C-alpha cells in the first residue's frame, strides 16, 4: 500500500521522508536504550536491597536461634535427696510384686481425677506391700501456666527438705487443691502454705519454692519423659508396660484391679 502511494512522490520527497523516518527511529532507539539503562540501574539497586533483606532475615533467624537456645534453664539438674534416678519418688516396698509408675502433672485435671479414683486404693495397696509406686511429676502444661513447673519444683523441694512422707502428703494435697486449667492459679505462697500443711517447715521449703531450686531437675524430667515416648499425662506403666486404657475405669483397673 505504502509502496503504491510513494510512487507519486518525487525522489527528493522520498529521500526527505526516509531521513525523517531514520531520525525518528534513532530517537526511539535512543530513548529505548536510556529507558533500558534506567531500568537496569533500578534493577541492580533492587537486587542489592533484596540481598540485604535476605541477609537481615537470616541474621534474625540465627540470632533468635542462639537467643532461644540460651533461654533454657541454666540451673543444673541436681536431683533432690530421696528422688529416684528416673526423676521420680518411689513409695512402698521395693520388692513388692507389682510396680507402678505414674507420669503426672499437678495441673492436669485428668491426673487429678485419676488420683481421686485410685489414690486411696493405691495407698492401701502400698501399705499392704502389694505394690510400689513411683510418682514422676512433669512440667507438662507449662504452656498453660507456670503453676505446672512451679508445683513440680515445690514437690522436689519438699522431698529434698522434708523427706518422702511429707512429699507424698504434699503430692496428695496438691491434687486435692488442684486449680482449674482456666485458672486462677495458686501462687508460690499458696504452695508454701500447702507444703506446711503437709508437714514441712516453712523456713526449709520457702526459699527453694520461691527460687525454683529444682527447675533444672523438673525440666530434665520433662525431657526424659518425652524421650520415653510419654506425650500425655497421666501416663501409667504397670510392671514396665504402658497402660493403654482409654477410660478412667480401664486405667484404674490396670492399677488396682483384682482382675487379670
Amino acid at each position, binding site marked *: 500500500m*505504502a509502496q503504491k502511494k510513494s510512487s507519486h512522490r518525487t525522489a527528493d520527497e522520498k529521500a526527505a521522508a526516509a531521513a525523517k*523516518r531514520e531520525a*525518528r*527511529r534513532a530517537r*526511539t532507539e535512543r*530513548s*529505548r536504550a536510556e*529507558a533500558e539503562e*534506567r*531500568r537496569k540501574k*533500578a*534493577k541492580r539497586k*533492587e537486587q542489592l*536491597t*533484596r540481598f540485604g*533483606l*535476605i541477609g537481615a*532475615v537470616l541474621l*534474625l*533467624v540465627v540470632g*533468635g*536461634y542462639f537467643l*532461644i*537456645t540460651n*533461654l*533454657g*534453664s541454666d540451673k543444673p539438674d541436681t536431683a533432690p535427696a530421696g528422688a529416684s534416678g528416673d526423676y521420680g519418688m518411689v513409695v512402698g516396698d521395693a520388692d513388692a510384686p507389682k510396680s507402678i509408675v505414674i507420669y503426672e*502433672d499437678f495441673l*492436669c*485435671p*485428668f*491426673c487429678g*481425677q485419676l488420683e481421686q479414683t485410685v489414690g486411696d486404693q493405691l495407698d492401701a495397696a502400698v501399705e499392704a506391700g502389694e505394690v510400689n509406686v513411683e510418682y514422676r511429676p512433669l512440667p*507438662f*502444661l*507449662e*504452656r498453660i501456666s507456670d503453676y505446672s513447673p512451679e508445683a513440680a519444683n515445690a514437690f522436689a523441694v519438699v522431698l529434698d527438705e522434708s523427706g518422702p512422707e511429707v512429699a507424698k502428703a504434699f503430692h496428695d494435697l496438691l491434687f486435692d487443691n488442684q486449680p482449674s*486449667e482456666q485458672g486462677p492459679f495458686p501462687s508460690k505462697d499458696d504452695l508454701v502454705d500447702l507444703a506446711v500443711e503437709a508437714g514441712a517447715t516453712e523456713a526449709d521449703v520457702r526459699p527453694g519454692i520461691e527460687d525454683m531450686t529444682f527447675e533444672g531437675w523438673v*525440666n530434665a524430667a*520433662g*525431657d526424659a519423659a*518425652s*524421650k520415653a*515416648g510419654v*506425650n*500425655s*499425662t497421666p501416663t501409667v506403666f504397670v510392671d514396665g508396660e504402658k497402660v493403654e486404657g*482409654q*477410660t*478412667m475405669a480401664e486405667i484404674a483397673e490396670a492399677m488396682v484391679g483384682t482382675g487379670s
Partner: protein
Amino acid sequence: MVGGVKDWFGLVARLATGGVWIAAGALKLPHPADSVRAVRAYDLLPEAIVPTVGHLLPVVEIVIGLCLVLGVLVRGASVVSALLFLAFIIGISSAWARGLSIECGCFGGGGEIPDAAAAYPGEIVRDVGLLALSLWLVVRPASRLALDNVLFRTAHDPSTDPTTDHITDHEGRCLDGAEEELAQDR
C-alpha cells in the same frame, strides 16, 4: 480491575498466613523445651536434630510471619510458609495414621480421656487452607499494602501493580510512544 481484586486477596492471604505464624511462634517462644518435646512427640525426626528443629521452629515461624504481614520478600517467605505447612500436614497425618495422641489428653473435664485424634481432621483442613493461601502468594506475590511495593517497583508488572500504574509508568509510556511512532511510519 481483576488485578486489583487479586491484590486485595493477596493482602488477605498475607495477613491470614502471617498472623497464624506469628501467633504459633509467639506461643512456643517462651517454652523452648516444650517446643522440642512437641517436635519429638511426632517421632518422625532423628533425635540428633530434634532439639535444633524444636528451637529453630518458633523463630522461623515468627520471622516468616513478620515478612508476610509486612509484605517483605513475599514470594520467598511464602515458599518457606508453604513448605512448613506441608511438613505439618505430613506430621499430623502420619501421627493420625499411627494412632498417636500428640496433644495432652487433659483438656476435657469429662470422665474419659478426650480423644486427641478427634482434633486431627480439623487441624489438617486448617493447614491445607493455609497451604493453599501460601501457594497463591508463591504464584502471585503482588498484593496491596506490601513493603515490597515500595522497595521493588520495577519487578512488578505495571498492569497488576496499582502503585506503578500511575506514578512510575514513565518508562512504559516511553515505549508506548515509540511504538506509536513506528506504527505511524508504516
